[in-house]
């Protein structure tokens, strides 16, 4: 690994609050270490802006380990930036060159109102889970963990789907603003496991209905969601969701 310093020009979406109309502002940054993460680069920008008495750029972030799903922005047209299967916090500046211009925007979608600068309201995703993304089991009284054997391949497939971090990149990248990868991943996880069987049909119906109600669009097989997903969630999960939904609605 070799550390270099690069100079960058940034065009960042600035919007005071949810009611204001926003616009791009241009900033320059010098001597950015290529070992920095993208968010550390934004920290440096914000420290500079603060020292100049200007308003720092608001952005969501928390764990900075690529697992909490809080961070995210569209960088040069790609949600979470150019590296595959990488959240914005895990994107490092070594993937950019000196002199690059980076256009940085929030995750835009009908269902994700912008709150300030790069911060959006993604609570619609929570409401999809609330509609049925669970097994209805109260605390206590669960059978022994080994009571129902689950083939390890099934557990692995469920884990693939369960890896979703709920960042919303799939929605921001979809030309239709669909949340089908997100919803499909949860439906798929629970339909694979024995524990999810009793509520399988109700779950598919309720979650798909909630998704539509929140204003998310439909899937037209653009596969943009899968391409940007930082956890590599496969669009097979959308096919599974559709199958589950059809089975539930047609066969009852």
């Amino acid at each position: 690994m070799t550390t270099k310093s690069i100079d960058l020009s940034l065009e960042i979406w600035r919007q005071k609050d949810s009611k204001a109309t926003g616009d791009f502002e241009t900033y320059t940054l010098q001597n950015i270490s290529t070992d920095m993460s993208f968010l550390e680069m934004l920290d440096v920008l914000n420290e500079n802006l603060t020292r100049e008495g200007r308003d720092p750029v608001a952005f969501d972030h928390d764990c900075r380990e690529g697992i909490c799903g809080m961070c995210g922005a569209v960088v040069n047209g790609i949600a979470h930036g150019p590296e595959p299967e990488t959240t914005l916090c895990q994107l490092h500046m070594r993937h950019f060159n000196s002199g690059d211009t980076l256009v940085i925007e929030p995750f835009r979608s009908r269902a994700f109102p912008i709150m300030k600068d790069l911060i959006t309201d993604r609570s619609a995703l929570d409401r999809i889970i609330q509609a049925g993304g669970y097994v209805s089991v109260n605390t206590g009284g669960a059978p022994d963990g080994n009571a129902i054997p689950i083939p390890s391949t099934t557990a692995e497939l469920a884990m693939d789907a369960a890896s979703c971090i709920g960042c919303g990149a799939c929605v921001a990248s979809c030309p239709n603003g669909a949340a089908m990868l997100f919803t499909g991943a949860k439906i798929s996880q629970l339909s694979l496991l024995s524990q999810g069987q009793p509520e399988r049909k109700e779950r598919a119906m309720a979650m798909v209905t909630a998704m539509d109600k929140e204003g998310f669009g439909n899937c037209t097989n653009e596969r943009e969601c899968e391409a940007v997903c930082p956890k590599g969630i496969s669009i097979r999960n959308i096919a599974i969701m559709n199958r589950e939904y059809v089975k539930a609605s047609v066969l009852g």
Partner: protein
Amino acid sequence: MELKSNVPAGPLADKWDNHRFSSKLVNPANRRKYKAIVVGTGLAGASASATLAEQGYDVSTFCIQDSPRRAHSIAAQGGINAAKNYQNDGDSIYRLFYDTIKGGDFRSREANVYRLAQVSNNIIDQCVAQGVPFAREYGGTLANRSFGGAQVSRTFYARGQTGQQLLLGAYSALSRQIKAAKVTMHTRQEMMELVLVDGTARGIVTRDIISGKLTSHSADVVILATGGYGNAYFLSTNAMASNVTAAWRAHKKGAGFANPCFVQIHPTCIPVHGSYQSKLTLMSESLRNDGRVWVPKKPGDTRKPASIPEEERDYYLENKYPSFGNLVPRDVASRNAKEQCDAGKGVGSTQLAVYLDFAEAIRRDGEATILKKYGNLFQMYEKITDSNPLDEPMMIYPAVHYTMGGLWVDYNLMTTIPGLFAIGECNFSDHGANRLGASALMQGLADGYFIIGNTIANYLGSTPLDAVDTEHPQFPQAEKQVQDRIAKLLKNSEGGPEGKITVDDIHKELGLLLWDHCGMSRDKEGLEKALTELPAIQEKFWKHVYIPGSGEELNQSLERAGRLADFLEFAEIMIRDALAREESCGCHLREESQTEENEAKRDDNNYSHVAVWEYQGESKEPTLHKEELSFENVTPSQRSYK
């Protein structure tokens, strides 16, 4: 301050049963009349919210993130312990209890730790029932691995994302209760103050992070599940928003703070690379199952690792601790890494790192097997460092990871303020002076799913409470306090940033002071120096910090400033606590207290107690109280991992 542990009578194994039987209950039909506030939605907060709501209580839950699923429990990698003994390798509830209390270096309560081991098995069952995709054997049974200092395989895991899967399980249970309107979920709300009425916790004041609006919330009980205070050091493996504010506000209102100097420094983190660094990343210590830790034998050896022949490498953990080898507990591994670096044998550009080498494991088991176990960790490491652990050894260095100290609680997990409970990392209760790997997830879920529901019923069933709402004068008064504090923070910034410094500048300064003098090893001189230097940093903060913007909008600089203001006050009791504990214990070496072999030397005659600090008011010295620990079932032994 009275410290009544309320440990029930009877033999160790019967205490929890006895306690539940003698506890008061709340009739199912009456539970909806009681309101509980839960602050935080990590494993402890989410599981407590869901469980209390299922039981019928009226629950209001608060988190600072945009969704309850983001809490920092999500980042736990390695696994969760339980005494299932599925592997038939000699595990039992008693052994898990013993390992946990011994791992904590005999600085925790026997009864609490035993209860933790007792409910550990229920946690696994509960999570499986929720659809948590734990790793499985080919026959379909749950898989286990051995983890951090344990000689049995009792750790359940979901790849390297166990925390994520357990949290999403608890989040799903919480979501179900939100849908059922049993939990009112308040996201992007930060708790700014605890409200007491007649000495009893009756509510909180929160600030809406989006609008800056302050709101009062009243309740019959307040449960803090707000995590640890590792970010006092600025650099830690904690999430950026993790903070001490809720616990500190409670402390200033009368809650005792226990063992604040007990901070775990985790041995396997990615080393620091520059001054712009915002946080440290943990590499799960499960890596030590197959990775071998080494440094060059010759100090200042700058050759590439591959060019250093076998006989010129020092596998210092294997040599020094033949029976545990690379799997010694976290504090031993951390301290030894620091020792090697202090001796000039550190590697990498900063020389503050040691190697963790998988070459032998890859030769033995093949790349595919190693990748199956650690693939996502290797990927994460490569993303950050641009180096592939399959090709060259990882570089690791210790970092602040977990805080064993926290709000003092009794057996019921109630603080010294009646009606105020603390669960998860935010309390001090189960890990003594050191937490074993895969035990944080266990404790968070034990507290939330299986303990708090019982003890809250006991409190509500035995305590007459007047009806209190936010009209009560204590609420506007608390709001006023918060307003004044925000105004004080912002006052400084009138007239622009000229000659001022940023919040992070000061946080870094505080972090360095604590890392240098109140980190892995401490001595009297350094701690006294830190105590002398702290007021200057506090003064610099209040005089020179510049915070752009106002309090009536989304203002991330203001949020960070508020949290730092509390860390700056809190740091004082951390240092005082470390100073008062003149023994080496658990995570920390007190330089003056070592064996002839330079191992940590505990002093049971003088320090077999929980140190509990009581707030005395602005610029007054806090008072130290002691809860003596008694060991009726285990005999404290000097730890030896040789």
